[in-house]
């Protein structure tokens, strides 16, 4: 399937889901689905740099927070419409991604991973001391009372925006994977020096990969302030975003765009279900055990396991 056909199919399905969801009377579905969709975008975005390129980013929460806090800033400064805030947050996180891309000039492997973690700490400290966006006290972002497109509640709008953004993230990830960029990134992941010698423009590709990855992670955070109505640094920089963005592609498989999607749907849904069924310290243990099991039994993720199974069948 060509990328154009895939994009058309993805957005058609996304629109169909948005329209069909209007008949769901239960708001719980929308808030639970919002969280799962948010994780799909984060996992997909992380995988572009971490999976395709092989640069492990521990600072996903920082990109997510840049998206969230750009919305807070714009809400306080100009009060623009939601699409403008989404676009601005995506661009801001993309610029940060570009800066991280330049880090790859000098750092690889564990050093790069630690640098991204440090980036998260630096940004956290910056936000804590920036009073305009609430500083340590946090900021209140009130959901507008008027909801457009005849939707009943604002969460329906946020959910719809999230569905479309998820489609966009998947289209971008697939387009990168199946193009010459994806092949170049795979070469960098396998052996960067060899790729450079073979004529792969490694710096340009890494910059592109880091920028797109950062922008998409930021995009996932842009609607977060409206979802919570109250954003404070520890919520926006929550460790769960960094952990889940890595765990989900690991579970699903890091070699293709489908892996993060499957991992995020699986782990995100399990987390949602466990939260309202077991509802105690056990829920953390169950998610942890699930992670250990997958990493042990299917080290290349579910997609890796499926590929191996297919190969065995062909033989």
């Amino acid at each position, binding site marked *: 399937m060509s990328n154009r056909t895939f994009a058309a199919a993805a957005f058609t399905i996304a629109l169909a889901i948005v329209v069909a969801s209007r008949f769901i009377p*239960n708001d*719980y579905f929308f808030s639970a689905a919002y969280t799962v969709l948010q994780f799909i975008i984060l996992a997909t975005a992380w995988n572009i740099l971490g999976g395709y390129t092989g640069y492990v980013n521990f600072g996903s929460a920082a990109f997510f927070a840049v998206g969230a806090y750009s919305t807070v800033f714009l809400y306080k400064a100009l009060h623009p419409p939601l699409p403008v805030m989404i676009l601005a947050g995506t661009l801001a996180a993309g610029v940060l991604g570009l800066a991280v891309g330049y880090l790859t000039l000098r750092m690889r492997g564990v050093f790069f991973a630690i640098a991204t973690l440090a980036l998260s700490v630096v940004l956290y400290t910056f936000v804590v001391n920036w009073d305009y966006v609430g*500083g340590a006290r*946090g900021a*209140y972002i*009130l959901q507008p009372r008027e909801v457009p497109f005849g939707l009943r509640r604002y969460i329906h709008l946020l959910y719809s925006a999230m569905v479309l953004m998820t489609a966009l993230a998947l289209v971008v990830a697939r387009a990168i994977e199946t193009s010459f960029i994806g092949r170049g990134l795979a070469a960098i992941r396998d052996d960067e020096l060899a790729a450079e010698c073979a004529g792969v423009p490694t710096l340009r590709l890494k910059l592109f990969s880091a920028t797109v990855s950062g922008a998409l992670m930021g995009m996932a955070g842009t609607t977060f302030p409206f979802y919570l109505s109250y954003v404070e640094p520890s919520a926006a920089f929550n460790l769960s975003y960094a952990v889940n963005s890595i765990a989900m592609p690991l579970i699903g498989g890091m070699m293709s765009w489908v892996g993060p999607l499957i991992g995020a749907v699986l782990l995100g849904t399990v987390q949602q279900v466990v939260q*309202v069924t077991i509802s105690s*310290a056990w*829920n953390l243990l169950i998610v942890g055990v699930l992670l250990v099991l997958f990493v042990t039994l299917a080290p290349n993720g579910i997609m890796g396991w499926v590929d191996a199974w297919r190969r065995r069948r062909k033989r």
Partner: protein
Amino acid sequence: MNRLTTWFSAGLLALSLALAAPVHAQQPLKIGFGMSLTGPLAGNGKAALIAMQIWAEDVNAKGGILGRKVELVYYDDQTNPSTVPSIYNKLLDVDKVDLLVSGYGTNVIAPAMPIVMQRNMAFMGLFGLNVNSKFNYDRYFQIMPAGPEPAIGWTQGFFDTAMALAPKPQTIALVGADAEYPALALEGARAQAKRTGLKVVYDKTYPPNTVDFSPILRAIQATNPDLVFVASYPPDSAGMVRAANEVGLKTRMFGGGMVGPQFAALKTQLGPLLNGIVNYETFAPDVAGKFPFLDQFLAKYQGRAVKEGVDPLGFYLPPYAYAMMQVLEQSIKAVGALDQAKLADYMHTYEFDTFVGKVRFAKNGEWAVPRMLTVQYHGIAGNDLEQWMKPGHVTVLAPASYKTGAIMAPYHDNKK
């Protein structure tokens, strides 16, 4: 044929019983909330949950409310605000709860507000800091006794006590963590310093993960302040108190807004190091006479808390979690229905008699009159818990109607 008739009759009987059941059996009155049972605030969340469960048992033992047994429907919010919207939507849409209350703290109250407001529910908050200042929701109520202006109410007692010292203090150092509560407390302290004409000689914050407080205390000591106001969370409070003792801090009053000394864990851990410190509390055994019937609750709570491994004293949060439910109970009984508008109207209009005393709400849903206790610890020897359960080690300095003694100043001469 005979067998068929028997089966048909049995089926008909079962169907009629199933249809009749909802008519005869009263549905329980469901009260829903998210609570921090894991994560950083799990200790407080579990303690509050025990209090709410004790309330439900007490109410059910007396026949329930409006003839219906009370059932608490709750989920673990993991101390993570992003879990809150889905929890509250599930409570309303799937569990079909009749009433909502909040979990513990501002971070998890605020994300529930849009949902509560969309459904026009009356909403009781548990220790949220000025949450309604932005939402302006007329059906929001909050049980922490910080008063209609929490930042001011929280710090009032410390500054009133300080300004009554002779000679009047001239300078103050303000220090706190880069986090939500300390930021609010420091904001209140700055306003109080301005009001009282105190010169602020030190005003700095520190990152929440700071472990060594000696350099901070040394820097404060270098400014030689008359008063030191600290707004901190439990780990930093312990660090601050230890550092003040190590450095040999010399000042007339030290403390003010430290979270931590209210809990048994820090009381027993710090023991005599707390002597001389002036801080806030929500209850002290020295004023137990002003909290009639609270001893009955504490006896029940303390028995369970030890088994559950949470705060064995339960002075700070649990009585207020119980009182929050009492407000709800008294409102429903008075209104005689679950009409949210009438419940909110009642809560705005009338005074409530609870285990934490008389409670009346201001227009913004906070306590109409602040009642944070400003206390001074003294005479603490050793690290045992028993001494904290009896009167004699906590002098209440403010508010005036709860005062049990005079301040012992300066701090450095009263560390025993």
